């Protein structure tokens, strides 16, 4: 245990003197994470608040419809409407069909890219324009039958927006926790194993009569600490950028715990990869797919939130903890226990593998 601590203390001291790593580890997440969030949030808000850009196939009916489009749709003049839609110059193409010239509009066709959020917004906006156009016609028809609009809407829907909500930036907090935990732990692990092999320092360490477990445990502590610290900085920056702000001490503790769980796994896996790699570059090549896998798991875990076995899947459960805490709630004790226990078990398995790999030639 004393030797394991000596290895950990040396690695942490070495890390604390690495000015470039410290600067990048603190400044990059502290600046890039909120900046990226703010830019994307501002862009999303601009797109949602500004009129949707559509191409209108010219006709007399179209001109009439566009009189109701103010603030909702901006008609963009284009030579070829379909080409403009394909290239993203406009979000939708509107074609108006009339039963006869000068008569009422019969059909409005909206073409939009179904998987494009801007296309969906444009389709919604065109629907609102059509509703604006239709309303006086409906009123007139109802009055002709001695009815008014109220008869068609027996139940009213009233919007009452309240302040709060984490916003787009807040929804990214769980992903930030997992991604930066992996980034911090795997970068340090590659340096402390494959990097040392490249520099010729690995063999002199292996020459020392230190148990393989102490060696692995000491290096793991440094990776774990780096991953958790980096995730903590990035998460704090992300929370600062989100509309929700600081969620509270208990939630912050849960976020830190989620980062620690993700870092433990990332550290264990990256150390094992580093032990079988001959250079830091090779270790990064092997770690990158793991990193992508964690990101994919984290991104897809939102849909698995209600699936009970998800609580027993390492990384996924850390993400779910972070998701709950970032939303201002607290996970159940059993959820916490599962996350800690499964992460610890998976980590122990990885570290046991590492001890077998230390002396690999």
């Amino acid at each position, binding site marked *: 245990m*004393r*030797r394991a601590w*000596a*290895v950990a203390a*040396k690695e942490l*001291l*070495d890390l604390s*003197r*690495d000015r470039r790593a410290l600067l990048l580890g603190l400044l990059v997440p502290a600046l890039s994470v909120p900046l990226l969030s703010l830019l994307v949030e501002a862009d999303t808000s601009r797109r949602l608040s500004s009129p949707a850009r559509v191409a209108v196939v010219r006709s007399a009916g179209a001109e009439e419809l566009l009189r109701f489009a103010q603030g909702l749709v901006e008609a963009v003049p284009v030579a070829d409407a379909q080409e403009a839609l394909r290239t993203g110059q406009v979000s939708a193409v509107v074609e108006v069909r009339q039963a006869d010239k000068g008569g009422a509009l019969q059909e409005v066709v909206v073409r939009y890219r179904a998987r494009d959020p801007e296309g969906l917004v444009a389709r919604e906006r065109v629907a609102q324009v059509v509703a604006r156009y239709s309303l006086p016609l409906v009123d007139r028809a109802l009055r002709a039958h001695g009815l008014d609009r109220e008869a068609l809407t027996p139940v009213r829907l009233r919007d009452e927006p309240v302040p709060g909500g984490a916003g787009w930036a807040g929804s990214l907090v769980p992903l930030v926790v997992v991604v930066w935990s992996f980034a911090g732990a795997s970068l340090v692990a590659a340096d402390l194993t494959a990097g*040392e092999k490249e*520099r*010729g*320092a*690995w*063999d*002199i*360490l*292996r*020459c*020392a*009569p*230190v*148990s393989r477990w102490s060696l692995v445990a000491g290096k793991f502590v440094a990776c774990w600490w780096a991953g958790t610290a980096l995730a903590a900085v990035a998460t704090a920056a992300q929370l600062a950028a989100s509309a929700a702000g600081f969620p509270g001490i208990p939630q912050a503790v849960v976020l830190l715990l989620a980062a620690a769980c993700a870092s433990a796994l990332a550290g264990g896996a990256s150390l094992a990869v580093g032990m079988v790699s001959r250079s830091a570059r090779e270790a990064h090549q092997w770690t990158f797919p793991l990193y992508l896998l964690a990101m994919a798991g984290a991104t897809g875990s939102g849909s698995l939130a209600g699936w009970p076995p998800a609580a027993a899947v390492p990384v996924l459960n850390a993400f779910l903890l972070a998701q709950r805490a970032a939303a201002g709630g607290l996970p159940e004790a059993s959820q916490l226990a599962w996350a800690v226990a499964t992460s610890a078990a998976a980590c122990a398995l990885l570290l046991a593998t590492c001890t077998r790999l230390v*002396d690999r*030639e």
Partner: protein
Amino acid sequence: MSVELEGVRKRYGPLEVLRGVTLRAAPGEAVGLVGPNGAGKTTTLRVLAALARPTGGVARVCGWDVARHPDQVRRRVGFVAEQSGVYGRLSGLEILEYFGVLYGLARSEARRRAEQLVSWLGMEKFCGRPASTYSRGMRQRLHVARALLHDPEVLLLDEPTTGLDASTCRLVREAVRSLARQGRCVVLATHSAEEASHVCSRVVHLAEGTVQHEEAAHYPLRATVEGHPVP
């Protein structure tokens, strides 16, 4: 015997690097392993340092089988590799203290021992600086000091004077002689037969993974380095 190799073979994939090396060295003896590149000198030392597991034959250090008791072997061996790295952000003294603790010394004892070796190898002027600022000679002295921290019975040196200036070469050579004189077994790998004959009592010629022949190389044993007894 401090070092015993009996028909040691070592294979890396399809390449057989050692093809039945047999070698013995007693306490107080300095043995030079001489041969061209690829002769198997470094691999022989790596087997003795329990860094490489022999694929055939038996290798023992102070009676301990390197394959079955690597930790016992590591307690008794000090190894200076040809291209050892240093922890550039730590000072020489911090590195020596760190390895002292890894070799089982108490922190205060590790510091005392490190200071002794620093003084003996003339490292006082630079041992407080980050190791990344060291010249090759300074690094080599640091590695020799590290290898001696736990007062090993067997010292393994791989091309210890390559790239060093004349004065540092002399210092390292005299250190090797002094250690042998004090009863330690030294195995030194070098491509220079001249260096081996200056430093060692016996020279073993290796080629293509086998011992070609052995010869005695008489040298004047001296117990000091620059007038100071080996700590």
